């Protein structure tokens, strides 16, 4: 396997993790990740020239995830009103395949965020990306990213602090 393939393969965990995070659906995330990697292979030369290949593939992933979610909403709209029991249906847990207590805590904290705040927080916390890199991935202004990140962190801290206070009553 050549150097380029190794570099591309090392991006797969980042892509799959981000797709699962955004879609909350493991199978859909695999399809999106596959499509992302396919595009990365096709545009390998462009990717090699990119300053930040990880941001480049994550941007493709984000766009494909948005398309997927939009298609899902359109399908639901075309299918007519939702059945009554589906109103209670919550999306799959973020790391549904793990089912650990820690992930459940994280899931609870993140579920309170908006989609934008959630994505910004993910890229900052999980991918250790700076604000300008996050803006590049999500097609946002770095200042907007900074505000969204600050709100998201504050929100998550409050949820986790409340939980810690409940566990340790005075």
């Amino acid at each position: 396997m050549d150097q380029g393939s190794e570099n591309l393969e090392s991006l797969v965990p980042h892509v799959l993790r981000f797709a699962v995070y955004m879609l909350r659906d493991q199978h859909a995330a695999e399809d999106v990740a596959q499509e992302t990697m396919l595009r990365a292979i096709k545009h390998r030369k462009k990717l090699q020239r990119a300053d930040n290949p990880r941001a480049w593939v994550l941007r493709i992933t984000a766009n494909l995830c948005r398309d997927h979610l939009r298609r899902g909403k359109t399908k639901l709209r075309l299918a007519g009103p939702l059945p009554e029991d589906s109103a209670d249906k919550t999306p799959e847990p973020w790391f549904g395949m793990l089912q650990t207590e820690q992930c459940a805590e994280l899931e609870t904290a993140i579920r309170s965020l908006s989609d934008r705040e959630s994505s910004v927080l993910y890229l900052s916390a999980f991918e250790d990306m700076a604000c300008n890199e996050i803006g590049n991935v999500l097609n946002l202004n770095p200042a907007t990213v900074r505000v969204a990140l600050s709100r998201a962190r504050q929100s998550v801290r409050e949820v986790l602090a409340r939980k810690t206070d409940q566990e340790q009553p005075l």
Partner: protein
Amino acid sequence: MNSCTQLKAYLNDELNMYDADEFTIHLQQCAACNSQVCAEREFERLVRAAKHEFDAATQLQQHKVWERARATARPKHILRSPLAAAAAVAFIALIGGGIMLTNSDPDRAISSHAPDNVPGESPSKESSREPTVAADQEKQELVQVSLDQDSPYLAVPVETSDPAITIYWLHPTFENDDPGESPSSSSPIVNPQSLLASFES
């Protein structure tokens, strides 16, 4: 300056060493700030754990995604490679040329086909069939047709899908300089009139 306002800067590692030390002292006295810092540390710990667990649990999926993407991309890359495309064209041209040469080489055809069972003409007595000739080649027989005495033609019968119809392909032969090595010694001279008569019948 109220130290509680420095919480955000502290969490973002934006304080200098002196201010950070001061804020650490403040944390021991302020329960609200302490709670926020603990929550931030907890969040970071959860993220690290989740990241590690997720990567460990999705090893198989990661491999599957990569292999599927590569498999999907591979055929298109072969077609797009100019070298591979040129090699494919050259290969097809070689094979095609080889087949055409095999079919149009009169010497090879004469040596490998016996001129018997020609419609409207009796087979030559001197002609002998080689034992190595394949069965399917035996069907394609070669006869020499003389439209006039000076310019003999080779007539190659080509079978069609209809067994009742046989098409003859006429091809001018070499000059008959040496009568001893003439193909007429092994191939019968077919009268075109009798050939036409057999077609009509």
